[in-house]
Structures are given as structure tokens and as C-alpha cells.
């Protein structure tokens, strides 16, 4: 299983990572709000993550760290 780490406070909630993920791991947090006032991304189904780093490739703010 891969491990995802987010710099949550830098997330702008654009959702490009969510569309890039082939396994539907990510979602915008429905209840959290970060320092910038956005709903940040979170790993709702981290157990499905295959560590392809597509999310991190598409993240404009470089907030995702992927470990395998």
C-alpha cells in the first residue's frame, strides 16, 4: 500500500488530483476547511492507492508526497 502525505494548508481545492487518480482514492474533504478557506483534498480510500503519483503530477501546488 502506498502512503500519501498532503500539505493540507497549501491546498486550493482545485480537484485536478481527484480527476487524475485512476483508483478514486481522493476527495475534497466535505467537513474540513484549511487556512486558505478551501476544502482541502484528503485520501478517502488510501487502501486502494497504488502509488502511481498521477495526483502529484497534476497538482499545481505540489502539496502531495507519495511513498510506496
Amino acid at each position: 500500500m502506498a502512503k500519501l502525505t498532503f500539505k493540507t494548508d497549501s491546498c486550493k481545492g482545485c480537484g485536478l488530483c481527484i480527476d487524475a487518480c485512476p483508483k478514486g482514492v481522493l476527495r475534497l474533504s466535505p467537513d474540513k476547511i484549511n487556512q486558505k478557506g478551501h476544502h482541502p483534498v484528503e485520501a478517502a480510500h488510501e487502501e486502494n492507492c497504488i502509488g502511481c503519483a498521477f495526483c502529484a503530477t497534476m497538482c499545481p501546488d505540489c502539496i502531495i508526497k507519495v511513498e510506496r
Partner: protein
Amino acid sequence: MVVFDKPHALADVPMHYCPGCTHGIVHRLVAEVIDELGIEGKTIGIAPVGCSVMAYDYFNCDMIEAAHGRAPAVATGVKRSDPENHIVFTYQGDGDLASIGMAETVHAAARNENITVIFINNAIYGMTGGQMAPTSLPGQVTQTSPYGRDVSLCGYPIRVCEMLSQLEGPEYLERVTVNSVKAVKNAKKAIKKAFMNQVEGKGFSLVEVLSSCPTNWGLTPQKALKWIDEKMIPYYPLGVYKDRSAKEETK
């Protein structure tokens, strides 16, 4: 094992770009290439005027802020002052490179200055609030063309890569985009080649990146990426427009 992390050459600060703006992706690609080539200590970047005006805050290499459009001229001076020990790149938007800075761009290309130019084409003036740019598409609605760009009044958008490819000077011209994972990987290859050309002393390399501007296009980040596919790529076809060394090798 770390599969993906922020490159060292990219500063650890939040960027000011709008949500979903692909400037951040291109910044990261440039930083990754600087890391991979191990040239952070001798790289000098030239920031433009436009949305990426604060690019100097986002890279860990040395940066200079140029007057509007003059980045290739500043890069020429920096590069010529110590050509062996400096790697110089400019990072410019379409309002900077294709509008006010057109003369500097064309002449730097004509002289085959040994610099790398990263050109972000998002078909609009982003920072000033979405006015029509020289690269805005025919019929595109902007703040200053509310009925769509009228080509009989405003002329046609400028295809920078095609135009520069007519010159003898430039070494390498390629147009890429960053609207999908595959496209980002291609863009990185192009940016790496553009830096490698400079390291090898081959000359002027320009990579045009078709980029999105969700805020001023009035679209969501996801729809903006689709808009690049549907509207921009038909007018601005992707591909290598000039690669002199490869051409000479095949002769």
C-alpha cells in the same frame, strides 16, 4: 521509498496562483529539471511581468525580475557576462513574450542566444483581469472582446513557435501542454531538452506550454483543461517546430 516529492529547486512556499492554474505544474517541471541536471547553484532565472511576476519567490536558484517583456534581453546580458558558468532561463507568459516583448524574443532567437525560454500560452492576460492577448483565439470572449475576438478588427492570434521556426537562428522550438498526466510527462521531456541544449552550448531553445486560466476563462479547473484540448490545440498544434541538431544528424 519516496515516489514523488517536491523538487529541491522549488521553494517551500505557497504559490499565489488561482486554484487549478497550471503555472504551478510548469514551475515544478522546471525545478525538477534543474534538480536532475544538478545545476541549481549556477542557474539564474529571469522572471517576467504577468501572473508569474513573483516566480522569483518560488525558485531556490538566483532570480532576476526583468522589465515587462525584456526577459530575453536581460537573459542575454547575464548569459554573455559569464557563458561558461551560468545557465539562464526566462519564464514568460503570452502577454510578456508575445506582446510587449515580441521584439526581444524574435531578436534573441535570431541571434541564437544560448538561453532557455519557457513560454506559457494561456490565450489571455491573466494578472490584469482577463483582457484579450495576442494569443486569444478567434471568437474568444474576454474582458476587452465581450462579443468574441473579431478577427476583422483585432487580427489573428500569433503562433509563436511557427513564426520563430522561419528564422535560421533558433536551435529548438517545441509546443507542449500540461492538461493531462501524459502531457505533463511530455512537457517535462521538452523542458529538459531545452535546458540540455543550453548546457551543451547549442543555442536558443523555446518551449511553449499551452496552459489554462480557469479564473479568466470563466471555467472550472477541470473544464479549463478540456478547453485546451477542444479549442487551443486545434489552433496551436503540439509538436517540435525546430530541432536543428536532430535535423543535421539525419542529413
